[in-house]
């Protein structure tokens, strides 16, 4: 028996949003997560339980531009497109280069990585430390949500069925900020991170003006603590050993990774805390 599959592919975003408003649909951007998740036997189309809406051809979702100094990135930009775009910050490009292989980077989208909400999504730690916001659009209008509020747990996001993520917004950061991304895994091309880390710091005259960090793959969502970050603001670098130990101890309490086929909880925690310790040593941010 052939099952009937309903799918829509509109030429315009507004038509697409009207369809999402009429019916609860499954959105497919690049499909690199969806097609694997719903894979069936060879020759048999994946079973996706809802009507499908394709979006990755919509030019409205592929723009990258600056507005009031904030960077707006269209949800359906692929990784390859972002790698080629001069407006995209280096740190984000470095993280993109750790994602899979060229063929996946030609299809996978930034919006897909966010909405898939994997604890190991490689774009997420950096987007957290950039305080990224998401523009959600529906027939009723736009709303803006912080990424940390949008992502609720593995594959769980705070999105109404008539909404779509249209843009990812990186608020302006001063040019002298340092941003880093580290990923620990096996083979890039199919590696889901065992642990990942993003750090952001702005130092003026040896004093920390702003500092943020987020860990990936060590909990159901990214681990970030603004309370812990605050303890470091105003301190001079190099940080005292006691300060570093205090911050590491604080994260030791809140990082609760799991064992799975990729790694163990103990390994993940040890590596996460090492990455933090290295970042806090700030070796790379001191003159000479």
């Amino acid at each position, binding site marked *: 028996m*052939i099952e009937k*599959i309903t*799918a829509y*592919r509109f030429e315009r975003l507004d038509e697409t949003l009207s369809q999402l408003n009429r019916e609860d649909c499954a959105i*497919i951007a*690049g*499909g*690199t997560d969806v*097609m*694997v998740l719903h*894979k069936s036997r*060879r*020759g*048999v*189309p*994946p079973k*996706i339980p809802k009507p*499908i809406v*394709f979006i*990755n*051809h919509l030019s409205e979702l592929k723009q990258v531009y600056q507005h009031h100094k904030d960077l707006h990135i269209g949800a359906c930009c692929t990784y*390859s497109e972002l790698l080629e775009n001069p407006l995209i910050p280096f740190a984000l490009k470095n993280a993109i280069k750790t994602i*899979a*292989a*060229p*063929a*996946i980077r*030609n*299809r996978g989208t930034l919006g897909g990585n966010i909405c898939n909400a994997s604890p190991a999504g490689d774009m997420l730690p950096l987007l957290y430390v950039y305080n990224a916001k998401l523009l959600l659009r529906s027939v009723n209008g736009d709303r803006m949500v912080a990424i940390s509020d949008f992502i609720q747990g593995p594959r769980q996001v705070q999105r109404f069925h008539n909404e779509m993520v249209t843009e990812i917004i990186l608020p302006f950061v001063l040019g002298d900020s340092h941003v880093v991304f580290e990923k620990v895994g096996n*083979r*890039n*091309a*199919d590696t889901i991170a065992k642990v990942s880390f993003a750090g952001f710091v702005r130092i003026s005259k040896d004093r920390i003006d702003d500092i943020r960090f987020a860990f990936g793959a060590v909990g159901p969502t990214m681990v970030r603590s603004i309370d812990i970050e605050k303890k470091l603001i105003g301190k001079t670098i190099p940080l005292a050993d006691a300060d570093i130990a205090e911050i590491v101890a604080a994260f030791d309490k809140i990082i609760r990774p799991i064992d799975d086929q990729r790694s163990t909880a103990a390994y993940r925690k040890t590596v996460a805390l090492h990455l933090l310790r290295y970042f806090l040593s700030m070796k790379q941010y001191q003159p000479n």
Partner: protein
Amino acid sequence: MIKFTLNGRTVETDAPATARLLDLLRDEFELIGTKEGCGEGECGACSVFVNNLLQNSCLIPIGSIAGADIQTIEGIIETEQFKILDESYSIAGGVQCGYCIPGMIMASAALLSENPHPSEAEIREGISGNLCRCTGYNMIVEAINLAAKKGDGL
């Protein structure tokens, strides 16, 4: 009905929109050079060009490629670039069982079109999404290197 260009010809299909491009190519269009290895984007055996970009056909629902230009290994076989790759792979001994090779050639062609004189690291990155269970990769890397020298910009 979904319409797209396949190896230069306009084609149509009434397969469901979620059908994988890979299955359509092999079962409906009988283009069996494109292989299925993992079916999950990890092995590259199913590599094709979508609007000239290397992609895994096992991850492509055909509804998303309406109007697109698709090329398979069969579609590039007449190109000068293919001939040079073909020759270089045989000289370097880059082919054993051959299962990964159509995908490898697609990845090699994509790499050389974008970067005609890649370093060894760039070659390895270019084929990083393609698994080979036989050769251990060194001969394939050598083949691409050879093709880059012979092709000189092709």
